[in-house]
């Protein structure tokens, strides 16, 4: 059922669904070895970063549920787009959940502070923040998926503006639809970048028997020579 209301969810860092994946943090930081093989100096800096970032995040998601109808194989809903990749992702969903997630501005401040005097820490913090917001998105989507299943529905994979042929310009509509600034404090600048920088907007479809599709981002990405491409896909 479609609704006019935007919901806000807040998460507690202690939530099991938000457990930190260290290996993922290190991968975002360009360290492609295993956490166990880190040399002592790096391990030391890494644990300082982990310590400093305790309590620095504020996990929030705002979302709304919208009806989708289909015309000529294209989804029709409040976010108007001709994206074929999105259509493919939604594969016949009757509803979508559009959401924005952020871990707050404090991480940006810490990064800005360390960037000038300890670029290593800044890098690790960037990576940590990236991992946090990804994990937040996963936690939110998993929760929605469970709710959908309770209603006898399945969910598709997640899709964001900038993926495939859905242009980044779609961000303007997403921000209009979710009132992100007022709800959870994300703003969009002229270049379509979000602040806080550790924020994500995305949507996924729901419907009876829809195909979950590819969930792994690296697999579906076109940039095959990416330094950060995750190990299991490279191999």
């Amino acid at each position: 059922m479609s609704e006019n209301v935007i919901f806000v969810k807040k998460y507690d860092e202690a939530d099991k669904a938000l457990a930190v994946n260290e290996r993922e943090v290190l991968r975002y930081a360009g360290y492609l070895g295993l956490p166990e093989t880190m040399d002592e100096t790096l391990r030391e800096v890494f644990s300082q970063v982990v310590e400093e970032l305790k309590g620095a995040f504020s996990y929030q998601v705002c979302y709304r549920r919208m009806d989708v109808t289909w015309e000529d194989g294209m989804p029709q809903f409040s976010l108007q787009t001709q994206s074929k990749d999105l259509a493919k992702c939604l594969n016949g969903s009757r509803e979508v959940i559009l959401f924005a997630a952020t871990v707050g501005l404090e991480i940006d401040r810490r990064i800005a502070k360390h960037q000038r005097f300890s670029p290593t820490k800044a890098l690790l913090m960037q990576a940590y923040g990236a991992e946090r917001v990804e994990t937040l998105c996963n936690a939110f989507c998993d929760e929605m998926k469970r709710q959908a299943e309770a209603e006898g529905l399945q969910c598709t994979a997640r899709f964001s503006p900038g993926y495939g042929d859905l242009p980044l310009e779609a961000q303007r509509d997403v921000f209009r639809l979710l009132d992100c600034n007022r709800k959870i404090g994300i703003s969009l600048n002229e270049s379509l970048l979000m602040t806080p920088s550790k924020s994500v907007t995305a949507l996924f479809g729901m419907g009876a028997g829809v195909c979950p599709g590819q969930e792994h981002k690296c697999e579906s990405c076109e940039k095959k020579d990416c330094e950060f491409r995750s190990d299991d896909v490279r191999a």
Partner: protein
Amino acid sequence: MKVLDYLKDHVTYLDGGMGTLLQKRGLQPGELPERWNVSHADVIVEIQKAYFDAGTNIICTNTFGANSLKFDDEELQTLISAAVENAKKARELSSGMQEKFVALDIGSMGKLLKPYGDFEFEDAVEVYAKTVRIGAACGVDLIYIETMNDSYDTKAALLAAKENCDLPVFVSNAYGEDGKLMTGATPAAMVAMLEGMHADAIGANCSLGPEQLRGVVEEYLAYASVPVLLKPNAGLPRSENGQTVYDVFPEEFSDVMKGYVEAGIRIAGGCCGTTPDYIAATVAKTKDLAPKEIVPKNRTLISSYTHVVEFKDSPILIGERINPTGKKRFKEALRNNDIDYILGEGLTQQEKGAHVLDVNVGLPEIDEVEMLKRVAFELQAIIDLPLQIDTTNVTAMETALRRYNGKAMINSVNGKEEVMREIFPLVKKYGGLVVCLTLDEDGIPAEAEKRVEIAKNIIRVAKEYGIEKKDLIFDTLAMTVSADSHAALATLQALNVIKHELGCHTSLGVSNVSFGLPNREIITAAFFSLALENGLSAAIMNPNAAEMMKSYYSFRALHGLDENCTDYIENIGKYASVAAAPAQTAGATAEGAKDSEFQSDLQRAIVKGLKEQAAALTIERLKTEEPLDIVTSQIIPALDIVGKGFEKKTMYLPQLLMSAEASQCAFEQIKNKMASSSSESVSRGKFVIATVHGDIHDIGKNIVKLILENYGFEVYDLGKDVPPETVVDVVVEQHAPLVGLSALMTTTVPAMEETIKQLREKAPWAKVIVGGAVLTQEYADSIGADYYAKDAMATVRYSMQQMGQQA
């Protein structure tokens, strides 16, 4: 009746939610509600009339998002005047007998200001100013700025309102569950800033239900001396059988509001999810209550963008190190635009325990207005301490105060008529706590009594401007005791009288007392203790000075300001023994010697990323070796080991950076040595680097900059979001052979292309290197770059090659 007159003797009621009611009436997702002022005027009037009927005194026009970012000038004019007309019509139609006012509603424009966002402060002021001018011309009774989740944005809106109309201005912020604004400010910090700028009423709205805002409400009531307003949500929305329901109903809402009115809330209303029923219930339960008297709190506060610093019993330490006077290295940093060095001084003082940072960047040969503006801005990007703006240049003072995010300290005025007439208007407009020096046209009086007289005169003149005593802090001027043996006594006596008889706070630049004496720190610290005993509220001092910090912690412990001596116990160890450092260096050397895989300990320290060791070992070597020999025989080979490891993927990015940081520590020592022996440094060439216009991601750019500097390039870092013209200007001015441009997003690549185009025209000699997440070789070719660098090392290799040097 005027709204402020009404407010004096009455609890005043605002309206409730508008957006949620419009959605029920069919406002579509993403549709701009302001357009309904014209398209559905009847619906707006009906809702607003219902609020007036429910007892609302102040209706907010349906103009939350009516600004020039969303509408062109013509539509903006149409929508705002229609909105005001609708509210006035509702007022006429309502049968309510209460006093009725119309407020021009201004919500956040939804853009984050620099440094975190990309919006210029002055542009934000102009966006709000446009709305204010139109609304004021339509004849509203007041301006209501609401749902602001950022202190800087709030300041821009309030400034716009104050500069463009004479109407009363109410300001309301949106707090999160942590009791802070999205960008970190506490209610007390907002009170300090907003009262300083003379908002007429302040408070909180939206985001949470009434009960969850309790902490916020209590903090406002404890700090504010103006009426406090509250407009909470009807709790949180949830879905029930396809209907949206808010979880706090009128009964519960109005019960909580009643308690708040009894506690001192003077202006009450509702936000998202509330309806005329909520307002009617609140009015019914509170209309017979006598409004609680608003007592001036008389608290001396300054603020940063996150918190307040209160001048009370515990002494405030104002770090004095951001000041070129007598500091060769600092002067050099100012001349070279070396902002990092200046920020480093700020961070060190913060770590050492300073509560406030004095900022003085006056040097005859630099543009002080620009430099002060820039330094204050950059400091506020990374350090959350309040600043003390220290300049004699009035233009520089105003520029800095205007852009300051919070309520600053102002250094300084004195008893000279002319100076007071220049500075007090700025204090009145922007707020601030002013340091008042007890000197006047006749100089510094030798006698304490005369200094007190000057203080009295300053208090009198400040009052003419509406500046209260609590916002003045007196500096009775520490003079050199070696020149006049009674100098310190006069200072202390004047201090004592001003603190205890005039009831004002005091501050001193304590170190002046010891000029010309040996072991200055000792006598300065003794003087500091005496001054504290005589009522000193704050000292402008060097937090790196161990003796001063010892006095500070001891005073607090002895004066009952440090419960269980906790702070003393925790901190005093740092100052008790200073002789530990050399031993550590020796240890480091011994440990390093064990490792044979490196040519020397210094190389090992750099490769392993050990910063302190690298610095200490460089200092050791500088005793016997030439600075440049150390660079070529030790640092560069070490960097090469790391660079090659990175390219072979035996070392990863974090390790490359750690080595770069360590080598930077070594370089800093070498620079210090070279500055003192004033020998010329050798540069591999000039390299201008920038993140292009529209892009605010700079971590990649900063990594490249660091590595380039390591390899001896003279890097001109223009920062992020840099317009093409700025890049061209600097490249031309420096005749730089190399330019590096970074972009993260596809949306900003056109800006990169434009920059290259302009460079080709005006600086055809320059080689342009591009990099960033979105770029590829093909992309780089298509926008006409000379080189696509996949990482920092690739940039170094190419640059060396271009400069005809071996990497």
